[in-house]
């Protein structure tokens, strides 16, 4: 069973990578770009095949390791 964890910066936390991407895109002539934010996506391959259990595990993985609660939010998607 597979799970997708998407980790993004909390709103309000400054995002230099995102800002740089937006700038770069505009200088390249993509002037419809108002802004950009960059995040991480982590795909997990699990031996667990009970989606409920999987979701619970992944939640704990995200809290303990994958995301830093001080600056980041995360969302989980179970794919199987």
């Amino acid at each position, binding site marked *: 069973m597979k799970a997708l964890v998407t980790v993004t910066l909390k709103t309000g936390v400054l995002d230099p990578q995102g800002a*740089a991407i937006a*700038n*770069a895109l505009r*200088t*390249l002539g993509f002037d419809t770009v108002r802004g950009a934010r960059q995040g991480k996506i982590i*795909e997990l*391959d699990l031996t667990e095949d009970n989606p409920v259990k999987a979701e619970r595990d992944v939640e704990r993985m995200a809290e303990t390791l994958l995301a830093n609660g001080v600056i980041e939010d995360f969302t989980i998607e179970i794919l199987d």
Partner: protein
Amino acid sequence: MAPMQDTESVPRRAAPVEPEVNQALAAEHGLKPEEYARILELLDRPPSFTELGIFSAMWNEHCSYKSSKKWLRTLPTTGPQVICGPGENAGVVDIGDGLAVVFKMESHNHPSFIEPYQGAATGVGGILRDVFTMGARPIAALNALSFGAPDHPRTRALLSGVVAGIGGYGNAFGVPTVGGELRFHPAYNGNCLVNAMAVGLARADAIFYSAASGIGRPVVYLGAKTGRDGVGGATMASAEFGEDAEEKRPTVQVGDPFTEKRLLEACLELMASGAVVSIQDMGAAGLTCSAVEMGDKGTLGVALDLDAVPCREDAMTAYEMMLSESQERMLMVLRPEKEAEARAIFDKWDLDFAVVGETIAEDRFLVRHGGDIKADLPLAALSGTAPEYDRPHAPSPPPAPLGPLPEISPGAALRRLLASPSFGSRAWVWEQYDNTVMADTVTGPGSDAAVVRVHGTEKALALTADVTPRYCAADPETGGAQAVAEAYRNLCATGARPLAVTDNLNFGNPERPEIMGQFVGCIRGIGRACSALDMPVVSGNVSLYNETEGRAILPTPTIGAVGLLEHLDNRIPLAPGPGEALVLLGATTGHLGQSALLWELDARAEGPAPPVDLAVERATGEALRAAAGQGLVSAAHDLSDGGLAIAAAEMALAAGHGLSLEAEPAMDPLAWFFGEDQARYLLASRDAPALLSFLSTRGLTARLLGETGGPCLRLGIETIPLAELSEIHRNALPRLMAEPTTN
């Protein structure tokens, strides 16, 4: 997304059917008809698909040196200081007190052009591995980079990717990157050069070699798992680019400095434990080259069982495993009784450890996979009968005659040069490299040679990499000699005694006589200079086929050189204090042929390259060391391209105060300040009379030139505020790199 990469047990699906082996398939593997014929004769049967792959890897230019061997043999490679010359993973030179310096330079040109970050990163990883495979802990890295014209559409993306990749790998590994070279020239538009050098320290009595010994000993695979990375990469590195360069892209490998760092520590622990009989890193054409090299050097056979090879991907075939260039892997022959101990060390570092074969008595390279025999070849013949060519070579055409000098004042010309990417400050590059980790960097980037202390001693090593491709194009032999002479000069300028060199020979397609002529000429020059300056060649690398649609790079034989400071107190700084006398050591004729002045100001490569008098070069360098030994020299800078004006500007910028230099009434000011005559140094002294008389007793040309101090740089009648020069110099590269880059 892609399948997982660190699955523990890989289910083996049915391997795909192997293509039929014939002339055409051999050609696709880069084997010439006569080379394929040689294989048929050797085996007197057609090779299997896996065997064909093995031959193509062993016989391509990159591994066999078939075009260059004949000429490499002519290089001086011995001397009392040499512990191990060319032929091993890196050269080894004695530095006294039971210690040895281990170093080599290697190119990663094609991969870096295709994927700059990963190409450069894995290049650094590869050369670090070459050094610690010998039992040395890497203590410094350098890199020599050549890119196309600054305004070429790809140049900036290549530069930023390559620099980030070198830093990304070296910084995480934990080796200080202390020096190198950066040049721009349209000849590199289609082929950038990334030459990485690594320097390590080892106990002189604890060097490890690749020659296997003992029969029935375990052949052990260590480090990262094997994937399909760079399958066909060695072939790619020896192929001229065509329009299909894009198709070759998926063979690019990704580096993992964290695994390399663990591999380093685990290998050094393993070596200390006495378990290691012989060791060889898996570089180009990984398992194939390393296994064959270990067997061949030990005149033994090797039997491999590929079922034991740790794999990262599903259903890998024998062909793929034998040609994979996955990084961060090692092959070792171990003492059987130490196997458990060895395994424990690799468990400690969480690295793979697998017995994948054994040494055998017969001259045989036997590869088993899934119960089948995939290859059964005469091992010695694999490298022994590798083709060797004496390619036709033609002399280079003489350069265009020297035209009129530009209409410009020395001060204005200096501003133009310092504002150019070629002479602007390199801080934009080396601030992305950790140059102080290991806490032994005495002189980091931005000086003549870098100076790195030998940990726990008062000794230090001086390190530099140099070449002036413009000279090599105008006159290969002079250019080759000049590259060695300039490296020698950079070492002497720090007070170090030059020890030995590594060379990285970058050229175009050797099947073209004019290119082969450049190669032969440069090697002749390098050989002469290394003998005359007593700097034997102890290691190196050849990179050919650096051309795109028939347009070759400039001949670029990068010389990496290492010198020894017996005591840190002998170090000569670059920056003088205020109120000191300036002395010009060496004779000035105002040679402007092939000069930076002509090239940077009006893109003219005219006139002969500056002549190199090796006897004078050596006498001058030795005199400088002797004078410094008597406390007569307070600062020194070597003169190279850009001549006196550039050297003076760099010295002033380093000092943070001005210099005044007199013009030579009898000479055109441009020739005087920008001439590129060789064997010259700009010295500062607190006792000029004593220095001058000391030098004249040695029969050397030297003259009082001016003094240090004040807020300006004065060139004859022109004065330029140092603040202005500093501003121009500092902003040259940042200005070029300000705009974002695309991929």
